[in-house]
């Protein structure tokens, strides 16, 4: 292999032993316990989780926003319709990196310094150094967590039961409200009998120097995460909005009229007739957008959000000099994330596809 020969000639070794060495650099923001005395493998995990975090939040938010904008584009109301069109045309035609820079550098500069920040919702401060908000402090969180899982299982069986009843007897339960009730009541009981206790930790202003302040306590969300999430969401939502619009317009007009003629209410028409058919058109291109969003999150490096590329393919690569190994691992990681999303979306797509009987 030529690469091997070249590396030998230049005295470069190949191997993955470096992963267990001490990383000796710190990372701004981490979901798991980390400091510089941990290994490069741990730093990799921190970067990976940060990438997954921003992708996950981004996917959820852009889906919600995309559906709203997509439906708004079909609205007969001139103002709503045109605003939605303008939004789509504007945000999808400006390069994403520019949008990230805009939100980070332009919007960031407009935010107040920590000492001048007004209190929002009685709990949070939005400052140039990030969003500081209240953090929950739990007692016996595990009990509460188990109760949540039990609630979900109960809801699952209740829905199965309700469906059977409807098929057998034609009886309809208010499924949504009963499910919501179960979801609230069971975990709430743990506060009374399970010894679960929740209090809130508030951020407090701390003086670092004469004109330099920060907040202590509570939960600090770095501005890098906020800017990146905002940019990714607003950008990707435009494409999803177009998918949604195409999906709804792709369902024949006769379907809606036929559904209305058998006495279904407008919301039932949308839920039972239009959406199931529209989804078949919406899902495949939307999968692409989810994948794009995840891969685009690697632009984080430009604004210091410590994602996989910045932490691992950036700092770790520099400190170890293991370019080939680290780039290979990073590529394999993105490939795995993308394939996982694809597999899930394909499964979902199959589930909602027309079942030939």
């Amino acid at each position, binding site marked *: 292999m030529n690469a091997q020969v070249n590396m030998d000639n230049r005295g470069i070794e190949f191997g993955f032993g470096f992963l267990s060495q001490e990383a000796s650099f*710190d990372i701004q923001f981490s979901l798991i316990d980390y400091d*510089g005395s941990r290994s490069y493998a741990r730093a990799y995990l921190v970067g990976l989780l940060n990438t997954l975090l921003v992708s996950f939040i981004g996917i959820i938010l852009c889906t919600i926003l995309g559906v709203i904008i997509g439906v708004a584009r079909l609205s007969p109301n001139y103002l709503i319709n045109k605003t939605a069109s303008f939004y789509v045309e504007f945000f999808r035609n400006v390069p994403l990196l520019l949008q990230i820079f805009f939100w980070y550098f332009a919007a960031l500069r407009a935010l107040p310094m920590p000492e001048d920040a007004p209190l929002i919702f009685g709990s949070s401060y939005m400052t140039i150094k990030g969003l500081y908000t209240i953090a929950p402090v739990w007692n016996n969180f595990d009990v509460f967590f188990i109760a949540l899982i039990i609630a979900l299982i109960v809801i699952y069986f209740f829905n199965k039961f309700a469906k059977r009843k409807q098929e057998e007897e034609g009886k309809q339960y208010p499924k949504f409200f009963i499910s919501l009730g179960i979801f609230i009541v069971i975990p709430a009981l743990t506060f009374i009998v399970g010894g679960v206790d929740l209090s809130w930790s508030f951020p407090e202003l701390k003086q670092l*120097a004469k004109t*330099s302040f920060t907040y202590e306590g509570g939960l600090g969300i770095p501005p890098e995460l906020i800017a990146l999430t905002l940019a990714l969401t607003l950008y990707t939502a435009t494409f999803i909005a177009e998918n949604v619009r195409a999906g709804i317009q792709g369902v024949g007009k006769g379907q809606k009229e036929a559904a209305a003629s058998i006495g279904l209410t407008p919301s039932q028409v949308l839920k039972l007739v239009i959406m199931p058919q529209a989804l078949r058109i919406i899902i495949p291109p939307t999968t692409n957008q989810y994948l794009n969003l995840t891969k685009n999150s690697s632009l984080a490096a430009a604004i210091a959000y410590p994602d996989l590329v910045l932490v691992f393919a950036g700092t770790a690569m520099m400190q170890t000099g293991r*370019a080939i190994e680290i780039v290979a691992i990073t590529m394999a990681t993105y490939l795995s994330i993308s394939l996982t999303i694809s597999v899930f979306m394909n499964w979902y797509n199959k589930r909602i596809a027309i079942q030939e009987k």
Partner: protein
Amino acid sequence: MFKYLKQLTSLVAMVAVLFTFSTESMAAKKSKTLKNTQKKGFVRCGVSQGLPGFSNADAAGNWTGVDVDVCRAVAAAVLGDANKVKFTPLSAKERFTALTSGEIDILSRNTTWTLSRDADIGLTFVGVNFYDGQGFMVRKSSGITSTSQFKDGISACTNIGTTTELNMRDFFNSKGISYTPVAFEKADEVVAAYDAGRCDTYTTDKSGLAAQRTKMSNPDEHIVLPETISKEPLGPVVRQGDSVWEDIVRWSLNTMIEAEEYGVTSANADMMKTSENPQIKRLVGAEGEMGAAFGLDNEWNLRIIKQVGNYGESYKRNIADTGILPDRGPNELWTKGGILYVPPSR
């Protein structure tokens, strides 16, 4: 079956192309890099993406700086013209890969000489052209005048991929201060974020702080704290495995420093040929066969001094006169209280 076979063949071919792409046999007895450079007619030099005083391009695309001058010196020595250099701006992250992969032949980009870089990743440091140390910059209005006033919760902006990140951790850990590192890929973004107030302090090499301060919206509002938390000897780097090329770069730099020591400048270099001092005569190619070992002619060092100037001239032109660091500090000759000391050319 055949369909898959065809796909497989094309895949194998693709991989093969990928690996032969960077082929460069080092078996050639003489310096392959030197031969290639003379054939191409220019020196391929990796520099920073813009650090005033070290390597910075003006509006017309002309590069200046002390790091740039090292590459120009090599071009004067091996090609006879200090302008025959192709500069490649590199981020901290890209720089070593660009050198080891053969995209550039000299990396002269305010790069700190450390054991692991020298020994581990196929690089060889040839010398030091600037003795630096890491420092901190803060806003004057904060009232901070020393790092001892740093408190828990301080946020520090810096670049990724540098020794800075490691030194910063060592420093804050040894003081027992908790801090938030905010690390960007490019220096311009670090400056912008610090300038906007994202961070309480900006840390990098002191020369870098002095240079970047000139880019801020209001330079007078910021000060560099007196403490130096690390040793940062910056110098040019070459690929491991071509000792002749390594020697050429090393002695090009040494020539500049030694020329200052003996008072040889770009203005008087020609006249020095008739000097009484044999050491000076060797420096301007009037005595001995100083270029033969490199496969160069005898006036290689004279050309460096004539076209680029000695180290003192380069420092004055790029760093002192631009107001970045008027005081030479440790970068003064050993004869004048600094630590610049190079082996003799003989």
